[in-house]
């Protein structure tokens, strides 16, 4: 309903502005219109990815009709439950990622990723560990030493409980030999809110996506202790966590899954379409502009990756005592 109301409002205003409505796009292509579900409210990462994908699919296959719709709630698990009800629908994709894997565990969602058909991994973003400029911790080793001495005294600010930032904190604690349950994690609704406490020097450290903190690291307001990538990130003066002494590597990845029960033909068609989308210019431009890492992966490769991420996230969330 919202989409319809808005589509109407937006179309009216845009048509009025540009003076051109929808020009007749000829006959429909063989496949029906593609729908992409963003299992989150408009404005977030999954929504953004979905809407860029919409543009890119349109560029890759001008005849195909594409529509993005939002199903917000509970870390994407509400959308996941809806997807499970679309068994066999070969014209539906859902954007998802690491956060959903965590949310399924944490919310004890009845529907899991087993009830989906993995299609492709699209992008990755790495996480960064920072401290305020005034912080006594000059390196990650300083922070780890303090952490081991008294975990409660090291407060770490980041996004929502059980989200990527929190998982990184848990993995770091485990690697450092600190009980993950003891991590003093200060959860926020997003990295932006966490940023405020770092700039005000209220917390010991912060974890978020590289893009969210990079500007402030460059301006000297925050000091980067490490990034969660395998190798150093270009243009950013920060060691990897591994170099700095903690065996942690993690990326906040995003990808597409489709409903379960797809025919082989439907699955191949969707994979081909997504591959074409990935090769299109609008997609490449968007990846560059958002500072994403292109980590395109399809078929069995992505299915295996998904399975290993599920095991890893499940383990750390249980160790942190986050399962309700």
């Amino acid at each position, binding site marked *: 309903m919202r989409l319809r109301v808005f589509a109407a409002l*937006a179309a009216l205003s845009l048509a009025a502005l540009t003076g051109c409505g929808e020009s007749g796009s000829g006959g429909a292509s063989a496949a029906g219109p593609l729908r992409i579900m963003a299992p989150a409210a408009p404005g977030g990462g999954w929504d953004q990815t979905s809407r860029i994908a919409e*543009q890119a699919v349109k560029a890759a296959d001008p005849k195909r009709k594409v529509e993005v719709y939002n199903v917000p709630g509970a870390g994407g698990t509400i959308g996941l439950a809806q997807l499970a009800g679309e068994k066999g629908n070969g014209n539906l994709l859902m954007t998802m990622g690491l956060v959903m894997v965590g949310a399924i565990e944490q919310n004890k969602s009845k529907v899991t990723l087993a009830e989906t058909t993995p299609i492709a991994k699209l992008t990755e973003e790495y996480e960064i560990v920072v401290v305020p400029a005034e912080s006594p911790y000059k390196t990650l080793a300083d922070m780890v030493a303090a952490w081991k001495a008294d975990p409660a005294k090291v407060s770490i600010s980041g996004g*929502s409980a059980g989200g990527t930032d929190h998982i990184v904190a848990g993995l770091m604690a485990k690697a450092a030999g600190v009980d993950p349950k003891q991590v003093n994690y200060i959860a926020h609704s997003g990295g932006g*809110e966490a940023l*405020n406490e770092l700039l005000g020097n209220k917390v010991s450290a912060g974890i978020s996506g590289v893009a969210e903190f990079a500007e402030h690291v460059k301006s000297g307001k925050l000091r980067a202790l490490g990034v969660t990538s395998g190798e150093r990130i270009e243009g950013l003066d920060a060691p990897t966590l591994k170099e700095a002494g903690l065996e942690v590597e993690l990326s906040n990845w995003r990808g597409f899954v489709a409903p379960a029960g797809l025919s082989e033909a439907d699955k191949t068609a969707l994979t081909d379409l997504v591959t074409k989308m990935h090769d299109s210019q609008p997609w490449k431009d968007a990846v560059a502009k958002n500072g994403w890492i292109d980590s395109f992966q399809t078929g069995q490769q992505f299915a295996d990756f998904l399975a290993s991420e599920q095991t890893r996230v499940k383990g750390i969330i249980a160790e942190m005592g986050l399962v*309700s």
Partner: protein
Amino acid sequence: MESLQLLLDGFAAALTPVNLMYALVGVTLGTLVGVLPGIGPAMTVALLLPITFTVPPASAFIMFAGIYYGGMYGGSTTSILLNTPGESASMITALEGNKMARRGRAAQALATAAIGSFVAGSIATALLVVAAPAVVSFAIAFGPEDYFALAVMAFTAVSSVLSRSVVRGLASLGLGLVIGLVGIDQQTGQARLTLGIPQLLDGIDVVIVAVGLFALGEALYVASRLRHAPPEVVPVGRAWMGRADWRRSWAPWLRGTALGFPFGALPGGGAEIPTFLSYAAERRLARGTAREEFGKGAIEGVAGPEAANNASAAGTLVPLLTLGLPTSATAAIMLAAFQQYGLQPGPQLFDHNPALVWGMIASLFIGNTMLLVLNLPLAPLWARVLRVPRPYLYAGIVLFAALGVYALNGTVVDLFVLYVLGLLGYAMRRFGLPVAPAVIGMILGPMAEIQLRRALAIGAGDVTVLVKSPVAVVLLVLSLLALLMPLFRKLSARRKPPARSTSEQESR
């Protein structure tokens, strides 16, 4: 002086016919979504984000700014006319505004809201130009303990003025606190009071609570009374603000602006708290006729909060532009829009893209003016809505309430919650419980809780962190005074020498 030159350049860039069109579309859309409960400016801007692929940045931001301001203003129209706040930030407006409308002063209430929004928006935008750096350093210095103290102050300031009976006010506040608990606890990720329903994991949206308790509760109550008494006829009243209205409005406009702007700049301050505080302040400061009118439709109670919510909208742009720090949902999506253009708001933005920033600030002035031009002549027209016979009018309200709430997430669960809250709202009216404290508790409760827990976690469990910051101490002392003042007044009225010794003991 250099800023002024840059601002003039900004006006030159923004004042093209095409951009004016975008501004017009923005404020119109904004007013529309403000009027509809459930659909807010944040969602509108988010859904229009794809236009950033094709439209030049200046035009897009002009439109987005128009939507933002328009949404803040639009919510007040339904608050005043129908006691149905379209946004949580215009909830307080309903308290006095709707009473004014029922006494035939709807046009005046709408006009003071429109002009107050304009005045506040303009002053706040001007402050954005001159005071951004100072305000932002103040905002960053605000820690969790200060937010907690702020929430405590808002509780005490508001609860003491909202109800004639303290017990009823507290009962309503308690209901709101319980509603605020529903959902995943942010610090631990555990679900609370969700009854195993996944749709409740994200909590109950404040819009549903406001619409359910205010609009639906009101509609049910009116329906239950229709047979008992002939419907009260709303007097038509005058079309424009009289001299007395102007005299009584200007000070609340300014005070509302002074409250709203800094709160908007605070991450986590929000647009609601300054409206609560503005209402509380106006009610306390009221003298003479105004004092008698409060609770029955005092224009000050509309002018202040309306100015406050628009000023806070401008305030949110301070941390957004200077730090890249979004402090409201709409600001977060504007940040995404900046990134779509490959711009990173932050300390360097003013130096790297002066044309864009100043163009946007100029466009705020333009959007604000356009809003006034659009809405002021409409005030008397809108006021006629009240002549629609009650049964039709309230049927329409129920329809729009349900439509707006369904549009929020597109789930039937939300509708169910809405109806349950509507029944609760009816029961509260039937048994004389005020509705506003419940919504206030629902907004402030979670904030107080989360900030208290953050402060304690950062302090590793040491309770004294709550009084270590000077800001927090000042706010807590103020709230203690707000609580004790009525007691002292009673005491000093009874005995001549006021009991000063206790006051000193208590406040430290």
